[in-house]
């Protein structure tokens, strides 16, 4: 997938026949290559070439074929030397250019453009008839909101850009297109707000994107992995979103968005840890409610990471910390369980991970069957059979449910991974281990950077003005200033 591929440069020849032969050879005589031969007056032979399925047939007919055929009928007396220029005059597609470099011509042909070759001219006319099939704009599936915009990105780059353009109607919105992926030659759009985004960060991002050297880019994660600052970390260093409103809001805060042809997920960078707890809905609802919900989300992130480890530490190392009545209940539950607590906990945690993974991939029709089996076997039968204690089921269920409160799946995956480290540390040396691992994680977080911006800001380094939109969201008068982390050039005071 990531192997490099090199092609040699060649120029378009004067002979149409030779050129067609060359193209067929290049494309392996592909069956969807359509070649239409024409004779333009006495000026000679010509060919109109396109690839079926990725061109707009309507536009090809109305704007390319019809004018050319009409031109032939008129049999105007044209100086043959200027024929390509004449043709570009009569073709009525918005995008048209002349190329003589074969690799570029092939790229355009594969991109959905139509190539017109004329005998005696070592140039190809490229008419923009591109039309990539894409689905219509639908509601995002990963970051749903109850109240707020309901449109989501599609796989089509230009649709996605249009969704952002329609939100930010400002001449400072910069969209720079480039291609990456030596084989796939995927279109990549880098979006930012001139004057708000930090110039150094923009330059850095462009530099990193231009240095991407992999075969293919099929999703934003390919770019993310190629350009992120620290490849070993479990934490997501960039935010990905399929919501145009989220991308727009981030652009307006001075962040940079990378949109890729073929995936509805846009990459937002630099990202801070706190961003992964912010739901777009926070800004669409009353700030008191939003703050409360944000605290709930952060709380459930901690529950998701720590609950099982703390439970394990309590029942294996720190019996004295459990209230006596609860202790008696827990002892009663553990009485018949044949496994050590750590095995019991890991069994249930893994069982849940399996269920979750199965839930994503199983056919929708058998979903209810799987959930019944999961709920009954794991929840009830396992307890009744004495395989696991009821408390463990409660703990694992709490952990599982709390993971679904977070608006971003990447941070949930980080918590999932860390949870197991915490469990092992707790089984090993109890709370001491949990605290030790926590300290390591905090140190790690403080060392992380996202495109040079401290990942753990505004907590470390402390940025007091940004704290107003971190653990809680203050009302809008106090949020008039832009966050200081990502833009240094254009501050609003």
């Amino acid at each position, binding site marked *: 997938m990531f192997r490099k591929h090199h092609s040699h440069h060649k120029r378009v020849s004067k002979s149409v026949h030779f050129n067609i032969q060359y193209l067929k050879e290049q494309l392996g005589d592909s069956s969807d290559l359509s070649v239409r031969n024409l004779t333009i007056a006495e000026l000679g032979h010509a060919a109109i070439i396109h690839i079926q399925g990725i061109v707009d047939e309507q536009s090809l007919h109305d704007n390319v074929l019809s004018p050319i055929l009409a031109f032939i009928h008129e049999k105007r007396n044209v100086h043959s030397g200027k024929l390509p220029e004449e043709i570009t005059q009569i073709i009525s597609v918005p995008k048209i250019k002349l190329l003589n470099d074969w690799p570029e011509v092939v790229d355009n042909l594969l991109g959905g453009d139509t190539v017109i070759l004329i005998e005696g001219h070592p140039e190809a006319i490229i008419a923009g008839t591109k039309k990539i099939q894409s689905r219509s704009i639908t509601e995002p599936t990963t970051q749903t909101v109850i109240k707020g915009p309901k449109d989501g990105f599609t796989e089509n780059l230009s649709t996605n850009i249009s969704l952002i353009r329609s939100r930010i109607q400002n001449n400072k919105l910069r969209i720079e297109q480039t291609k990456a992926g030596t084989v796939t030659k995927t279109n990549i759009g880098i979006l930012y707000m001139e004057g708000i985004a930090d110039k150094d960060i923009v330059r850095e991002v462009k530099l990193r994107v231009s240095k991407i050297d992999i075969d293919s880019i099929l999703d934003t994660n390919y770019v993310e992995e190629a350009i992120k600052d620290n490849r070993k970390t479990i934490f997501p260093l960039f935010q990905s979103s399929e919501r145009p409103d989220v991308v727009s809001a981030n652009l307006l805060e001075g962040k940079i968005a990378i949109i890729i042809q073929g995936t509805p997920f846009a990459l937002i960078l630099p990202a801070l840890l706190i961003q992964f707890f912010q739901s777009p809905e926070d800004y669409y609802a009353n700030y008191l409610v939003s703050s409360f919900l944000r605290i709930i989300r952060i709380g459930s992130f901690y529950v998701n990471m720590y609950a099982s480890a703390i439970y394990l530490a309590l*029942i*294996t*190392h720190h*019996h*004295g910390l459990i209230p*006596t009545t609860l*202790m*008696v*209940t*827990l*002892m*009663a*539950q*553990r*009485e*018949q*369980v044949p496994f*050590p*607590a750590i095995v019991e906990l890991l069994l249930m945690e893994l069982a849940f991970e399996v269920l979750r993974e199965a839930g994503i991939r199983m056919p929708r029709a058998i979903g209810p069957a799987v959930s019944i089996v999961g709920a009954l076997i794991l929840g009830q039968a396992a307890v009744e059979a004495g395989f696991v204690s009821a408390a463990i089921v409660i703990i694992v269920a709490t952990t599982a449910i709390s993971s679904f409160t977070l608006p971003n799946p990447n941070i949930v995956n980080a918590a999932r991974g860390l949870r197991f480290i915490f469990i092992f540390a707790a*089984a*090993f*040396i*109890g709370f*001491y*281990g949990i605290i*030790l691992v926590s300290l390591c994680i905090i140190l790690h977080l403080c060392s992380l950077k996202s495109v040079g911006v401290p990942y753990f800001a505004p907590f470390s380094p402390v940025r007091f003005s940004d704290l107003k939109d971190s653990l809680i969201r203050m009302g809008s008068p106090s949020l008039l200033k832009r966050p200081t982390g990502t833009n240094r050039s254009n501050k609003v005071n």
Partner: protein
Amino acid sequence: MRKAISVLLIIGLLSGCSNYRELNEVGLIIAIGIDLPEERESGYRVTYQVINPSYFSQNGSGSLPVINYTVEAETFIEAYRMASVIIPRENRVTHLSLIIIGEALARAGMGLIFDVFERGESRSTFPVFIARDSTAEEVLGVVEPLESNPTKSIISTSENNQKMYAISEAIPIYRAISLLSGEGQNLMLSGVKLSQPLKSENQTANLQNIKPSVVEVSGLAMFKKDQLAGWFDGKFARTAHLITSAVESTSFPLACKGNKNITITTQGIKSDIKTELKPEPALIVNAKIRGNVTELECYLEISNNEEMIKLEKKFEKEAENQIRETITKAQELEADVFGFGKELSKDDPEYWKRHEKEWNTLFSNAEIDVNVEANISNSGMLTDPFKLQ
């Protein structure tokens, strides 16, 4: 590579911090009863009350919630370790919540027996009680229907009584230690006993009896040094707590006509004690009592303010008498359980230093000066009672 090795090394070293114990491998001791030994000359007879977890599980009916193991040994730790001859699980005192001391042992002198509880890994916030006229083993040996285990029934009976009438007060072990080691105040510990002896050895029979043998708080033990010297009973125990401001709420019946009574329920009691030298020490108690009229058995126009003031005076007199009698009882035993000496040592350290040794005699001969300020503020939903026609 170096990183991996150092992480492994750290993990290896950290394993010393591990204290891994599965829940189904520990025997949870929730109460310890201490008595004089029966089979040996010296040492203790220790009863461990251990939780039986399977009673609390779903299919655990038929067994009892706790199991008592009794061991005799020279010292506590010896007994604790020796208990492994009969207890099948590693016994842990992390959840120890009650100590009962048999009266015989308390009378013989407790010495430093609390040392081990403060030194070890148990908490030191749990209460100590004296098994009155019986042994700790016996008091811990009854499961009553309303509470899930004997420990809980002793603690909750005591707490409930402290709230409702105040004969009993749960003295945590750290306070008992500070009273034993402090100067100018003797220890008072609440007593517990069984309301009636068990009719049969079968505990389930007791559970099915409508009038079962239950734990009863009974009296307040006065100590001289570490030895039990005597008991306050009923009203006197309550009044002793009134002097030490340990009463939340209690009731005072006042005679009104014939053998009819008016009952005052107190709401807040704050009493100050001090010792004045005039020039011999005099014990002074100033108490403020707020209360409500909650029962009237004879006709009294309490809507009339003058009647109310008369009632308050009567109440003050009654309370003063009770306090005086209670202090007199302590004086007879020469046991200053209220801390008059402690107050004196704060107010006049020099005098205290000179007379510390003879304080018990000074205390028992001291004059008593009681001053109660009563305030009856409320008479419930009624003012005057209804008239019998």
